[in-house]
């Protein structure tokens, strides 16, 4: 048993750090540091191109598809260091979500067309899963896809589509059969966002931003060739994808970054002749979240170590998701508490948005999206505890 990285892992980490120090453009890093999403599409795409040029465009892909062939531990180190360095997170919908499905279940033609374009940031992907009546209960989705010659004709609505306003392609779960169990009768389609009949309507969120969308499909024709695998077998592919989405779900790097920022903020905020960091109660609150994060970091590494042996990410990811998002939300609460009355100002006279307050509001989503924390607890109870 050794909780520390070994020499090779440390060398790899240093290599990543060096790369980040030199290759990450300062203006991107600064925007990310300020949670400034005004250039988010370009920032993500440009960073992806830089990673791709380095050969690191797809940390988790096998080498034969242009991936790095890195171990799980190396992938973890890479993602953690990127977050610590304020690099933009890679767009998960392409690299982490549709790509593994393509590699496992896609046709050779699909693989050859889409995978290189994902790597090179030629396409922006988004996800069409949730519907107005199908959130946690995804299998109840209703969006109809009816065969008409070589096409499916799609009608219906998707919601909570993240960053789809920039998208070139969307992968969708659609209903191709309503006769049997809801899990049967779902198909997995790849859809060009330029297809006539698609309308994207951004949803205004509580923090005033527009990062999710409603997407309406009105007689949208999608070639059957754009289906992944078998008709009505989409649920299988979706479940496979779900596992992949959750590899870095604990967000250790991002939380470490925000913890450091929290301490800096507290050390700069006057309190009783000293600073808020010197306040026993507030420092205890910081200590508690720092300890929880330290424990989760080890738990995360344990899960990675176990996964490296048996390959498939297990229900343990649910624990990482719950605790990881709780920590991120807690850190943003504490940052807001350091600001105190200053956090009341949401948009100041120069039009600037207060980072900590808007982040606090925005991060409420963490425990809702990506499988709500309640659903994750159900998964733990059923899959791990066997209840």
């Amino acid at each position, binding site marked *: 048993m050794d909780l520390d990285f070994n020499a090779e892992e440390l060398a790899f980490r240093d290599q990543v750090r060096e790369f980040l120090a030199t290759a990450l453009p300062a203006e991107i890093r600064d925007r990310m540091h300020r949670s400034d999403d005004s250039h988010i599409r370009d920032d993500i795409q440009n960073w992806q191109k830089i990673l791709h040029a380095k050969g690191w465009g797809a940390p988790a892909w096998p080498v034969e598809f242009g991936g790095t062939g890195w171990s799980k531990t190396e992938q973890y180190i890479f993602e953690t260091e990127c977050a610590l360095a304020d690099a933009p997170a890679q767009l998960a919908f392409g690299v982490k979500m549709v790509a593994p499905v393509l590699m496992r279940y896609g046709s050779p033609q699909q693989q050859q067309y889409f995978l290189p374009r994902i790597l090179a940031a030629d396409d922006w992907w988004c996800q069409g899963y*949730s519907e107005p*009546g199908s*959130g*946690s*209960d995804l299998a*109840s989705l209703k969006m109809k896809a009816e065969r008409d010659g070589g096409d499916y004709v799609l009608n219906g609505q998707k*919601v*909570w589509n993240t960053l789809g306003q920039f998208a070139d392609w969307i992968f969708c779960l659609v209903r191709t059969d309503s006769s049997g169990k809801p899990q049967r009768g779902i198909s997995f389609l790849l859809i060009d966002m330029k297809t006539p009949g698609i309308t994207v309507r951004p*949803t*205004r*969120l*509580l923090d*005033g931003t527009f990062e*999710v969308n409603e997407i309406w499909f009105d007689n949208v024709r999608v070639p059957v060739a754009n289906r992944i695998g078998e008709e009505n077998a989409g649920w299988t592919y979706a479940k496979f994808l779900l596992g992949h989405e959750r590899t870095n779900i604990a967000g250790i790097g991002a939380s470490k970054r925000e913890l450091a920022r929290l301490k800096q903020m507290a050390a700069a905020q*006057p*309190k*009783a002749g000293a600073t808020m960091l010197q306040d026993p*109660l*507030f420092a205890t609150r910081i200590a508690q979240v720092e300890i929880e994060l330290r424990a989760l970091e080890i738990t995360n590494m344990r899960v990675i170590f176990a996964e490296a042996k048996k390959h498939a990410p297990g229900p343990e990811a649910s624990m990482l998701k719950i605790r990881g998002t709780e920590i991120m939300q807690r850190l943003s609460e504490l940052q*807001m*508490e350091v600001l*105190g*009355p*200053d*956090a*009341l*100002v*949401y*948009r*100041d*006279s120069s039009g600037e948005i*207060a980072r900590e*307050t808007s982040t*606090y*509001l925005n991060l*409420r*989503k963490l*425990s*809702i*999206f990506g499988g*709500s*924390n*309640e659903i994750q*607890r159900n998964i733990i109870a059923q899959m791990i505890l066997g209840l």
Partner: protein
Amino acid sequence: MDFSFSDEQQMLLDTTRRFISERYDFEYRNTVRDSADGWSRETWTALGELGLLALNIPEQDGGIGAGAVGTMLVGNAIGEGLLLEPFLSSAVIATQAIVELASTQQRERWLPTLASGELIAVLAHDEISTRENPLQVETRAVRDGDGWSIDGNKSVVYHAPAANLLLVSARIAENEIGLFAIPSDAAGVQLLPCVTVDEQSAAAIVLKDVRVSGDARLGGDAKVALQSALDIGLAALCAEAFGAMQKILNATIEYSRSRVQFGAPIGSFQALQHRMAEMLMHLEQARSMSYLATSQCTDPDPLARRAALSAAMARMGQAARYIGQQAVQLHGGMGMTDELNVSHYFKRLLAFELRFGSTDQHLEIYRLRLQAA
């Protein structure tokens, strides 16, 4: 021990609630929010006509003199309706400061127009330094002939952009604070408007050599009156917060009854039922503490008053956070949208936690008193 309300008090609540349900529904409120001013003059005038702006004006001054209980009940309704108008700022806090400090002449000048809504006054008091000590004012007023010259920086003042009259607190001597009535368009007054997290209009205020005449000053040392106005304001804010909590919980219960997942309303899932039961217990404890704040906000014993108000703020801040966060959580993605009222209540409750001192600050005040006992 008596938890009933008088007929007059009950009528204030009913009147305000009826006004809101008829004239200030969620759709209307969104129009107001999206307007340039961010509040509605029409609504404000109507509140004046209903007498609600005269609640804190004594009967001998032509007001209603509804006291803390009446203010609480109206505050409940205002929190329920998420009103964006300066009720708390002008009709409670500024009015109270004027009632406590102003000369007969000043009262006659201001109180009738405050009651009608024609005059909007706000207390420009908070500064960076007041965060730790509410009476630690750095803005200074120095004698300038018969009048005064005032310099300083006030941080976020709710509804300052709507106000005709600013009541500016300023240090006169080491241990003396003066309160000065300054027209908001006076020379040297600069407003830096902002929008608060609960989408109310506010401003930071820069005062640079603002000259006012001697009769701009209200009364003598303003410390006691300031604390009194702030404390009555605190109790009224608690009442607003309680109103918001009650509404957001009701909205959550309703939503959980209608939202179907896995073939059943989510309100039938036991884990969510227990969450809502917990929210209800927070709500009821918050209601009790709002009552406590109301009944103690005028307690002449400053230590007992401080302890009671800090206990109320600490407990209600905890309730506001739990109820607000869980309401959003139980609404799922819909709770994150601007479309439903739940996110608006959530933000109002967040602002509650940040105004008048944080939960931790009040816990500290309470704890220090407990340690000193």
